[in-house]
């Protein structure tokens, strides 16, 4: 069988994509405090995201991947993942920041052109989570760099991720 019967049925069936959640009010308040409105205007209404795993268990990565599926369809909001930090407006950092990843993360932040936003995705990036106190953990992220937005959760669900990321698209 070829893919076309399935594709054709998808074309005429109701869309799987669900309405995106509104921007999370808590995230809006954080951003207002962290980023000046000039920078927010410059970044505009379409953002390039770059994910950096700095010690995650890979749970957050699974849910970041789920943002691309037909139910969540991240790109309709003007958000897309890019391969290089040099092309990114937003760094999404997961994990408690291990000692072994600290330098690589630092280089990724340095490689991202200003103005940029750094988002702590998940409880580990927000505050080292269940890995607090481990000898191989150097985090949390906020001890190395300014964190503009925190999306909590272990891991955050795709809907929580969308609600957080939408804050970045709202005019300041």
């Amino acid at each position, binding site marked *: 069988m070829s893919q076309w019967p399935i594709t054709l049925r998808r074309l005429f069936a109701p869309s799987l994509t669900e309405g995106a959640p509104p921007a999370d009010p808590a995230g809006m308040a954080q951003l207002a405090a962290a980023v000046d409105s000039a920078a927010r205007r410059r970044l505009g209404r379409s953002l390039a995201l770059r994910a950096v*795993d700095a010690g995650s*268990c*890979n749970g957050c990565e699974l849910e970041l991947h789920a943002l691309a*599926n037909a139910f969540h369809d991240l790109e309709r909001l003007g958000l897309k993942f890019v391969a290089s930090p040099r092309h990114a407006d937003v760094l999404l950092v997961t994990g408690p920041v291990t000692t072994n990843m600290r330098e690589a993360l630092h280089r990724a932040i340095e490689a991202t052109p200003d103005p940029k936003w750094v988002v702590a995705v998940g409880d580990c990036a927000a505050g080292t989570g269940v890995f607090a106190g*481990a000898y*191989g953990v150097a985090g949390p992220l906020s001890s190395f760099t300014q964190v503009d937005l925190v999306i909590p959760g*272990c891991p955050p669900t795709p809907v929580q991720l969308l609600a957080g990321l939408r804050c970045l698209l709202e005019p300041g």
Partner: protein
Amino acid sequence: MADDLLTYLAPATIVTWHRPCTRFELDQPAWRLLVERMAEADWSLLGLWADVDWIHMALRDEVEGGVAVASVPVIDGRYPAVSPVRPGAIRLERVIRDLWGHEADGAVDTRPWLDHGRWPDRRPLSPHPVATPPDAPTAEAYAFLPATGDGLHQVPVGPIHAGIIEPGHFRFTANGETVVRLEARLGWLHKGIESLMQGLAPADAARLACRISGDSAVAHALAFARAAEAAADIRPPPRADWLRAVMAELERIANHLGDIGAICNDVAYAFMSAECGVLRERCLRAAAACFGHRLMFDRIVPGGVAGDIDADQVGVLRRLVHGIRPAFRKLIDVYDNQASLADRLVGTGTVRPELVHRFAAGGFVGRASLRAVDARKAAPYPPYDKLDWPIPLFGEGDVNARVWVRIREVEASLDLIDALLDGLPGGPIAVAMPARAGEGLALVEGFRGEIMTWVRLDAAGRVGRCHPRDPSWFQWPLLEAAIEGNIIADFPVCNKSFNCSYAGVDL
């Protein structure tokens, strides 16, 4: 010399508080003889790990099926190496030295593995850590294995990769486009989970076990819980066993669906990725509806499970299985008839069966190269002792074969969920963990293959030592063999077909 493993070890001292298999204490000369014997015997290495003064090794007799743990004391910081006869032990010996300072005499490879020269202390798990000297060589100074010849060039990749993926460094040596050698350098995610677990109540340590590798949250939590229960000499209630299996099969299906889609996506066939993504999302939503968490974190606890399901939730799972089955069948038909997929995936990234056997690699990596070992059947744990299902086996050892193993396992797991829901017993879902000392070993089949977890509980019932061994330990080295002779551009799809865990081995 025809002794089986248990007969061979029988003269050694038996540790009475180790369950369910036997642990034998050997002196160093006896351990040396055991290692010599392993050169001829078909005893596969299940794990090699350290305690304060001991090295433990779990083995399975592949002919007779017996599992045993052999232990040797560390004397003057040294023990006889296993790596000369079991290449799967190479990285494990390097980890033991990095974390404990125990040196393996005669080790094949003495380079550091997890220690990148950045931790405040060296040998962090040993009772006597030493401060890392300021001039310690860092990861940049790592001596990659050489490859020499005219026209060879190196391509360094990582630790941060293009994509939403875990960090690892890959050093390719290529001749034109063809890979001559690949060497992986991992350890970037090392947090110190084993150290964090020490001193915790099993219920708290289980939260860490869930986060060893998030995609295997159920499997690792199950392995930890079973090891802790064996150590405390208790059995969870039957209903807990069956609910655990429902979660384990749901996790397997969700991960395999994600992998099948991602492998096709890596050769630019986005249709399959989109369709498999829809099915995977339906699995995660059913998991959230029935177990309260999309990835089923913290649902399995030592002693049982954290929550029960009611008739409505059984209905959710039934509808999920009955919805996925026909949709998946159509996708497989598409996969099987797409010439562009066959062109890229057949004959790509081949691993020979002898190599899979030498490393005792399990899961889809093993079963795509004729190694049929499945922990659910090799040493059946409840409820799998009451169920039957086919174990898929392929011999080509290429990316395509690893996809087909996953396809057949999705089908088998869908049927298993139906069977589990049919036979779901009533009764309680958990028992209390007693404060009791003991040691336990558990073997559990995760979606990647066999997880081995060993737990020592102290007299207060707290975790004295825990060692979780992810299946990826014995699969990562084979990826280096699989890519040889392939083009660099095919590395992503080869890597995805292995889908080894970075977090699970970095710990």
